């Protein structure tokens, strides 16, 4: 009749105890956080009395995972950036042009002269002067293609060549673009991670989203601008030979050369050789330094091979100027005074200490393979987050008390059982959130409050059913049993439909919305569990002890 087998009872309460144990650290948030931070540092090999003391604030045998607080609660910056992969296509084609030119020049007899036509950056257009040689030219260029390792295993080459009269159009093949995207994004992710780690904020989230986007979330940053400044620079550093200076923005630099504006001198442009002597990729280190006048500068050191190249170049070109170019701007163009053999030097410019520090960070972390576009930017101040948490807590408590009182007024002792289940329910939600390391957002708190309201629903369905059954059934035990039995289908149907919406919200939503979906989804699971098992076992335990002749629900 109305009893639950002991093993089952044990399982139910064991689940509750485990769930609540995992929820517990959240009640001591600050303390556990200090412990976790200290433990993380100790694991990296650091030890100190202060760290040990911090670590001892929370016993090791207890679970220590916490519910992550979302940016809207903790404060911080959220950025969605798009990687301009077309940049990489363009620069690949740019680099491809000389080999096309040389290969065709070797067959000048059949194809004639080779010239480059203007085109959009993602294609390379080449004109040959002998249209009859077009087929030959086509074959030559096709011959330059190299195979792409693609995931499908299908043989693909990296370029597509089209021909229209005397004009050859070279574009990247689908497979190459896909492979290039993949490489670019991974590289960008890595560099973003390094740049942000250099600043040393805690627990940044750097995630790929879709094919060419990256989500960056950095807690505890006062303004997204700090991050934008850090990420907005590609930090492409090159050292190019200087051919001349001019005051005209549209001066023609000549083949193989480029016109680059100066950073601090207005209306000054440098004519540089396009091919750099050395680039930032060869840097081994960069750090803040000061020049002989005490102005901030960036000291750098090249790796061995680049140091040799740079040394040779300086030896051969004493007396001529070279330019330090950062992201298409000439930072400075000193004259080579002497042979620089060690591969180290300093970059001076009109830097502030902060700018020089940032530049050093950027140079150390490496250049971005492509420019980033900022699509979405959100900064939440920590005070606003703290206010939201406080408001959420108060609302939870008030809502909780109102519902507890209301349930007791409506269902008496059974209401008390439902209330115990409700409190356990909230604990279990936090337990689940902690176990999976979910992020709690402001809408997430609303989700919990809503769950508190809706969690009693399953109990209400059962209790109302028991009331009905009491009118007809033989005795209270049977009524309770029937009540649970008949209410089950309603409870399951009703909650599955709500759960469907939670799942859809989770998959479609981003940030705060998916945070809400997570708490809603967990809330549905725990509230069904507590209503079917916890309240029921409470009622059964009470019933088997009290053995009442009649019950009032």
């Amino acid at each position, binding site marked *: 009749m109305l009893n639950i087998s002991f093993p089952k009872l044990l399982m139910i309460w064991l689940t509750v105890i485990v769930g609540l144990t995992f929820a517990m650290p959240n009640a001591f948030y600050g303390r556990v956080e200090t412990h976790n931070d200290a433990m993380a540092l100790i694991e990296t090999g650091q030890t100190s009395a202060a760290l040990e003391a911090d670590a001892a604030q929370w016993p090791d045998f207890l679970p220590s995972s916490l519910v992550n607080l979302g940016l809207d609660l903790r404060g911080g910056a959220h950025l969605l950036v798009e990687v301009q992969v077309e940049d990489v296509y363009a620069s690949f084609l740019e680099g491809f042009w000389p080999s096309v030119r040389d290969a065709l020049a070797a067959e000048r007899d059949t194809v004639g002269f080779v010239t480059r036509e203007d085109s959009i950056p993602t294609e390379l257009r080449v004109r040959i002067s002998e249209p009859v040689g077009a087929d030959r030219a086509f074959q030559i260029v096709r011959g330059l293609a190299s195979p792409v390792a693609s995931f499908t295993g299908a043989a693909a080459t990296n370029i597509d060549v089209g021909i229209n009269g005397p004009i050859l159009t070279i574009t990247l093949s689908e497979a190459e673009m896909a492979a290039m995207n993949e490489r670019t994004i991974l590289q960008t992710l890595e560099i973003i991670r390094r740049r942000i780690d250099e600043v040393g904020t805690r627990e940044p989230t750097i995630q790929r989203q879709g094919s060419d986007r990256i989500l960056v979330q950095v807690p505890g940053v006062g303004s997204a601008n700090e991050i934008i400044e850090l990420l907005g620079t590609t930090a492409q550093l090159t050292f190019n030979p200087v051919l001349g200076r001019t005051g005209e923005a549209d001066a023609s630099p000549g083949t193989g050369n480029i016109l680059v504006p100066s950073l601090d001198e207005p209306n000054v442009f440098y004519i540089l050789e396009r091919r750099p002597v050395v680039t930032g990729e060869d840097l081994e280190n960069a750090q803040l330094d000061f020049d002989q006048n005490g102005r901030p500068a960036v000291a750098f050191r090249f790796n061995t091979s680049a140091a040799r190249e740079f040394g040779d170049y300086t030896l051969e070109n004493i007396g001529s100027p070279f330019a330090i170019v950062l992201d298409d701007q000439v930072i400075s163009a000193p004259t080579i005074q002497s042979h620089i053999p060690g591969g180290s030097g300093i970059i001076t410019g009109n830097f502030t200490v902060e700018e020089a520090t940032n530049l050093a960070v950027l140079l150390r972390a490496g250049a971005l393979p492509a420019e980033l576009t900022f699509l979405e930017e959100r900064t939440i101040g920590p005070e606003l987050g703290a206010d939201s948490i406080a408001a959420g807590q108060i609302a939870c408590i008030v*809502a909780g008390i109102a519902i507890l009182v209301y349930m007791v007024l409506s269902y008496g002792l059974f209401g008390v059982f439902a209330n115990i289940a409700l409190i356990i329910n909230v604990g279990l939600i936090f337990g689940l959130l902690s176990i999976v390391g979910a992020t709690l957002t402001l809408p997430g708190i609303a989700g919990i409050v809503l769950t508190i309201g809706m969690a009693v629903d399953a109990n209400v369905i059962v209790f109302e059913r028991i009331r009905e059954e009491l009118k007809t059934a033989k005795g209270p035990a049977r009524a309770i049993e029937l009540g649970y039995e008949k209410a089950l289908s309603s409870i399951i149907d009703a909650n599955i439909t709500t759960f469907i*919406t939670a799942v859809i919200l989770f998959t479609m939503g981003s940030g705060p919305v998916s945070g809400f979906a997570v708490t809603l989804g967990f809330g549905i699971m725990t509230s069904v569990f507590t209503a079917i098992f916890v309240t029921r076992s409470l009622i059964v335990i009470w019933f088997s002890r009290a053995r009442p002749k009649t019950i009032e629900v």
Partner: protein
Amino acid sequence: MRLRLVRENTSIDFFSRARIWLGLSMVAMVIAFVSFLIQGLNYGIDFQGGTSIRTDSAIPVDVAEYRTVLEALELGDVSIATVDDPLFDEDQYVALVRVQAQEGDERIASETIESIQTALRTIDPGMTFPSVESVGPKVSGELIQTAIIAVGLAVIAILLYIWMRFEWQFAVGAVLALSHDVILTIGIFSELQIKFDLAIIAALLTIVGYSINDTVIVFDRVRENLRKYKKKDLKEVLNLSINETLSRTLMTSVTTMLALLALFILGGDVIRGFVFAMMWGVLIGTYSSIFVASTILLVLGVKRDWSKKDPSAGTKYGHIET
């Protein structure tokens, strides 16, 4: 003595004025639709792109003054709204400044944000900006698309589930009822011009979930009673089922409402719009599961000879072993 929202053994006839209720719902939906067409929604930056800055100052907000300093920047459409909340400190004055997405600018210019902040600091040098949010037109376009897909998918998924578990008439009734709820919720946001952003979509989907929850409870009872009382006509069975579940329906609405009310009053201004949407949804959802969903079921009719293949609805999932 227990607190009872509903007398025991009610026998209210919910369909005596079915036409009035349906008519009322139709009129409300038409108003919602017209309002949506005429004044549209007050889209937040999530859906329209642009920048929204929350200012916090010790000096009372003078909207005209804010407007003057910002107009000098020539940023196009600027809206300034003061925010008031009982939880604020005594000398805390908060406003929300919103600037439209800059023409032809796919990316977010941090210079623009900085210039706005500098301009506003001329009013109060101690002004702080607790939140700055900027969404580019590209992302906002995608967000709105995703939102529409999400709501659509949810409705279809529910339609399929109810169809599977009940009969198609139930599924149609349930889906029409929740479309009714969604339309009326969008309608009130349009009518009152409350900010419509991503969080409201979350609220909308929760309303869908809540409303369907309510409807399913009633339908479940209808199915059970159809098997129990083979001789009663559909209208009687529907009435009986609604009456039997009325106490639960109202009970749950009240507890949910209590929770939402606490959040509405004490939860701070940031989520107030979100909570408002949900409160409205609970109200509408409760109404629609009683009046809309069941009335549609009555109109469509239900074939009743499926009792043979499934004699006991309550045991579909088996007994819980006790």
